[in-house]
């Protein structure tokens, strides 16, 4: 099954992914409604697009008291069923990664649904920092974390 693989070291911080995602959500350009967010760490010369990992053990799903978060069979993504969601925000609290949002009109939660199997963010990324590819959704985070850790230690030693 495909997943979004993120390569922060390729990201330039342009936010085309946010624009594309918000376009899918709203039909306009509104990064505040994007379900993928680029974090800009100027001091670290690092930019990181960041969205739902589609956890196997999805805490958002487990926390939801009305079963409004379901698995989309086709894409494997966890999706919010708008008509079921009662807007209690327990999923927002439960998500350890902060990738469930509550900005949508209608008072329902919103999260990345992989655009039903054709994610707009990956398509527009000019540097292939976001890839839609066959992989475990969390596969990129380990090596990335190791690299950041290594850089940090190296910098500390250099000082």
């Amino acid at each position, binding site marked *: 099954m495909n997943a979004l693989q993120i390569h922060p070291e390729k990201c330039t911080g342009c936010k085309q992914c946010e624009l594309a995602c918000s376009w899918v959500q709203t039909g306009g350009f509104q990064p505040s409604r994007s379900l993928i967010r680029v974090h800009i760490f100027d001091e670290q010369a690092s930019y990181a697009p960041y969205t739902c990992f589609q956890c196997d053990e999805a805490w958002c799903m487990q926390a939801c008291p009305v079963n409004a978060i379901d698995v989309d069979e086709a894409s494997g993504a966890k999706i919010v069923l708008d008509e079921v969601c009662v807007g209690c925000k327990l999923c927002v609290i439960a998500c350890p990664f902060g990738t469930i949002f509550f900005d949508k009109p209608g008072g329902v939660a919103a999260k990345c649904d992989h655009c039903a199997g054709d994610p707009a963010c990956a398509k527009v990324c000019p*540097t292939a920092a976001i890839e839609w590819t066959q992989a475990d959704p969390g596969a990129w985070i380990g090596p990335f974390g190791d690299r950041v850790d290594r850089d940090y230690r190296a910098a500390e030693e250099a000082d």
Partner: protein
Amino acid sequence: MHGWTGCVLRVDLSTGAIGREELNPDWARDFVGGRGIGARYLWQEVDPQVDALAPENKLIFATGPLTGTNASCGSRYMVVTKGPLTGCITTSNSGGHWGPELKFAGYDLLILEGRAERPVYLWIFDDVVELRPAEHLWGTGVFDSEDAIRRETGIPGTSVACIGPAGENLVRYAAILNDKFRAAGRSGVGAVMGSKNLKGIAVRGTGAVSVADPSALMAAQWAQKQVLSEAPLTSEGLPAYGTLALMNVINEHGALPTRNYREAQFEEAEAISGEELAQTRLAANKACFACTIACGRVSRISEEGRARYTLNTSPRNWKHATEGPEYENAWSLGADCGVADLDAILKANTICNDLGLDPISLGATIAAAMELYEGGVLSEEQTGMPLPFGSGDALVALSEATGYRRGFGDDLAEGSKRMGEKYGHPEVFMGVKGQEFPAYDPRALQGMGLGYATSNRGACHLRAYTVAAEVVGEPEPMDPRATEGKAQLAVDMQNISTAVDAAGLCVFLTFGNTLSDLTPLVAAATGIAYDDDALVRAGERIWNLERLWNLRAGIDPSEDKLPKRMLEDAIPAGPARGEVSRLAEMLPEYYAVRGWSPDGRPDAAKLAELGLG
């Protein structure tokens, strides 16, 4: 409205009054946005004779209809005001995220009037607009000010545009910085902001930019980005080396002004080139909002350099990362001062960002001072330090002194024209209308000389980038030494660049895109049936309006000139050896192509034709 938000935010700093008004739709159509609509409002509201630093001058931040859209490079805003360096209408452009945030907050334009009694900053969060005290930030650099303002707003995603001590101290070429490293750099817009006691403008928008024809816009932006991803400069050159890719190229053409324009080749250009930066100091490429090119350089001072220079970008700056240098800055702080130390350049460039200075004018002014020092006009007593060409330490020390107007920095803060005049040597000023030249020798590239002389904001490379034709060969190669055809080239480029500025796009995308790639974007966003001709016409209209402003401000057409050194002193060595600028051959033709009178004034018929009558 689509593309535009349709709303103008007006803040009277004297009274604290905050008002919203409808964007004039006729002006929006005719002047498009950004530089154009800013000029139209300035024309309407500010007497060109006003003192640039008086409360009666206004400071306009203007976005374009494509700012905040997903068009590549749709990040730009333009600061429009009367500039204290030139006395001309001043249009300084910046990218980053500030312009799009203003659009998302719901405003096309922000007009600032009057003068606050005490230092303040403006906080815009969608409909919430308030002036907040900034006395505690006065005197603080850009980096710390931005961090502090962001902390105080508490809203993630807030973008801050602010001035540093240079703007507060009314340095005539003080810049406005946003997102720490992006600058509305030239002509002293930061001093205007400082004169208004306005430290910064923090903005966060959660709203949307809507477009008139979504499917047309999507098609146009895919096509536009496709071109950028295939053109050599925008897909390879700029991502690999940033604008600094030009250093070796321009040097090889013998057009790299060196040691205050006395030479046109720098023997150590290699040491300050994009290739050198990429190999030894580049940490990452950085893009402005929506940019698919990412020419921004995030760089680190070398380990050896770290022993001499520390960067004060942030206490958490564990990678010792800063941004830059751009080609222009590496030239002005480097070749023009004879400095081949990339670490000193990075340090000086970082000081410019933190104190809020235009590195082009700063470097060029220091270069002029170095010439005076070596000529025995300035003594070490006057400058406070030895000031030979090539001294990286003097460059760094004087960059800081200038931002604070300390010691000799107080003279440098006036720019090289006034500094040269003060010491009885006006001939060391290398620029036009009070503004220092950028990094292309107009003797080696004839078109650039004409572009500098006729630019409405004083010497500028971005108004008519004839380098594209004269060096790169785009859209068609032209002989850099020839004057034939340069008038038409300059006019065409001026009009097109003006239209790109007005749309809210970055002129760098013209390294790949032609106007025909961009017109469908503007049309789809606004729902107005612009074609290429209409946008060129809008560019021409804006250009003429700026010219009218300058004429009314008392800038005589006789100011369309170059320094004697460019006209009489031949380039001593290199491929362009023996060349001088032949401006006199091009200028009358330029006026004719513009449809102006032989003495350089738009006549009534021209103005009527452009709807400016």
